[in-house]
């Protein structure tokens, strides 16, 4: 199978940018990625992208240029960016085009998401009676996970503490203030056991990648990052997912587990080979669950790893080196590609103060979310 490489990365800063639409932020990210790759928009032969709340990705052509290219709108919830990337990789492998773009962007209203039950195939009562909240789901899943695996709430604090510590080292992060253990542990309960600083916020931003066949990559850059795997999977019956009025008696592995296994298989590597990691950290509990679901430790081992500093930038398993969703917020459409960009910068050794030491060779990104989707990539250094 033809290898595909990322030759350009670009972002519009995550956070809040009043007066700038999500689409303008997406177009900005594409321009930055094109600049990084040294190519122009009219050289791009295929594009995939999407947002959850900021409109169609193909409308970015109105900003970038109406070149007639096939531009496919992706609407895959939290896996929108990952799905766009997997689709561009497949399109380039098929020979459909020489250069492809994957882009995600978003602009969410402040506060928690307020979904409509009918959009999810649910009756009105589920929303009306106060059960349809993503934060509740994360709390219920975390509470059960901590109970089953004997993990204390200390681990939830440490995840957030490391995220904001890394955010403080990241010039483009939204949250750049390191928080003390006490500040996090004593912050306002949102949905116990999760507190204010253990949740990421819906946000705004854009992220884009330019890709081509690896055999052509050196025409554009001396630092191409190889895509060794880009996989997206959906849930099975019995998986514990958001907005579930009931759960089946028999639990099934999460979509993260199936996406992760498929990615390792495609790349021909295992979790022990990975040097830098991005895990979906919608909240502290999710990151803890995802450490094990992606194969980086056993269930229940996380608290020890966190206490030992193993997930810090200078640890054995550096996780969310840019502060993850906790420090960057979550513009749903862009979030998965933000992870890929951070790992690219780490593999290109351009991550500045947050650079993982020892020239990391293999990086891993994992996104997970509504409605029970996960996307995983494995990337290799130039």
């Amino acid at each position: 199978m033809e290898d595909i490489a990322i030759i350009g990365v670009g972002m519009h800063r995550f956070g809040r940018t009043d007066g700038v639409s999500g689409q303008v932020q997406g177009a900005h990210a594409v321009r930055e990625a094109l600049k990084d790759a040294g190519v122009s928009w009219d050289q791009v032969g295929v594009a995939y992208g999407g947002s959850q709340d900021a409109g169609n990705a193909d409308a970015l052509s109105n900003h970038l240029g109406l070149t007639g290219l096939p531009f496919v709108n992706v609407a895959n919830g939290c896996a929108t960016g990952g799905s766009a990337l997997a689709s561009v990789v497949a399109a380039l492998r098929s020979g459909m085009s020489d250069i492809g773009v994957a882009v995600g962007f978003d602009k969410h209203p402040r506060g928690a998401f307020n979904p409509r039950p009918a959009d999810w195939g649910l009756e009105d009562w589920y929303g009306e009676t106060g059960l349809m909240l993503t934060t509740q789901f994360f709390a219920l899943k975390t509470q059960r996970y901590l109970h089953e695996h004997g993990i204390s709430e200390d681990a939830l604090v440490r995840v957030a503490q490391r995220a904001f510590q890394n955010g403080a080292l990241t010039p483009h992060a939204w949250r750049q203030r390191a928080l003390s253990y006490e500040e996090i542990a004593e912050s306002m309960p949102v949905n116990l056991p999760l507190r204010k600083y253990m949740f990421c916020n819906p946000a705004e931003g854009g992220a884009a990648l330019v890709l081509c066949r690896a055999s052509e990559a050196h025409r554009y850059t001396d630092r191409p990052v190889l895509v060794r795997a880009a996989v997206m999977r959906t849930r099975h019956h019995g998986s514990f997912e958001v907005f579930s009025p009931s759960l089946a008696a028999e639990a099934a592995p999460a979509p993260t587990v199936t996406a992760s296994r498929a990615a390792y298989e495609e790349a021909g590597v295992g979790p022990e080979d990975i040097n830098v990691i991005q895990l979906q950290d919608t909240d502290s509990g999710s990151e803890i669950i995802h450490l094990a679901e992606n194969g980086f430790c056993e269930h229940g081992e996380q608290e020890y790893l966190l206490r030992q500093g193993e997930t810090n930038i200078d640890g054995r398993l550096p996780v969310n080196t840019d502060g993850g969703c906790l420090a960057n917020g979550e513009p749903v459409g862009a979030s998965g590609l933000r992870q890929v960009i951070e790992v690219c910068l780490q593999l290109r050794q351009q991550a500045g103060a947050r650079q993982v030491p020892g020239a990391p060779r293999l990086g891993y990104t994992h996104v997970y979310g509504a409605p029970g989707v996960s996307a995983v990539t494995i990337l290799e250094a130039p």
Partner: protein
Amino acid sequence: MNDNVSVHHATRHLLNTSEQGLVLLGSRCVTCHEYYFPATDSCTRCCGSQMAVCELGSQGTLWSWTVQAFQPKSPYNGGEAPEDFEAYGVGYIEMPSGIRIESRLTISDPTKLTIGMPMHLVEADYGKSADAVLRTFAFTPSNPTEESV
């Protein structure tokens, strides 16, 4: 509950009053026997589409819980002013068949909520509209000493 005002029961269709009292209604797959709540017309386990309505009971144990500490935005319709909002408990209750039902809880004190505690089904008021009290199903601790006052 005040019987002098009209009641809007948001989930009456999910409940049945049988000899055992109030029970939850769901469905069961005729082919693979998997349980569903609320009732569905297809089975995501075996991909079958022959379903039968069934009762899921009224007693269970608390499988997981949280406390909803902030007032939800729409579609929540509790109707209280922001300053009157009171935190409420939410949990999954494991029923005898093994299915876990998501439900509001009648208590919200985290020191009184423990995974594994026995709970049973009740009806509870959760808010007010212009002309009615809003009611739904909820689970409450079965051991009275655990109950809040």
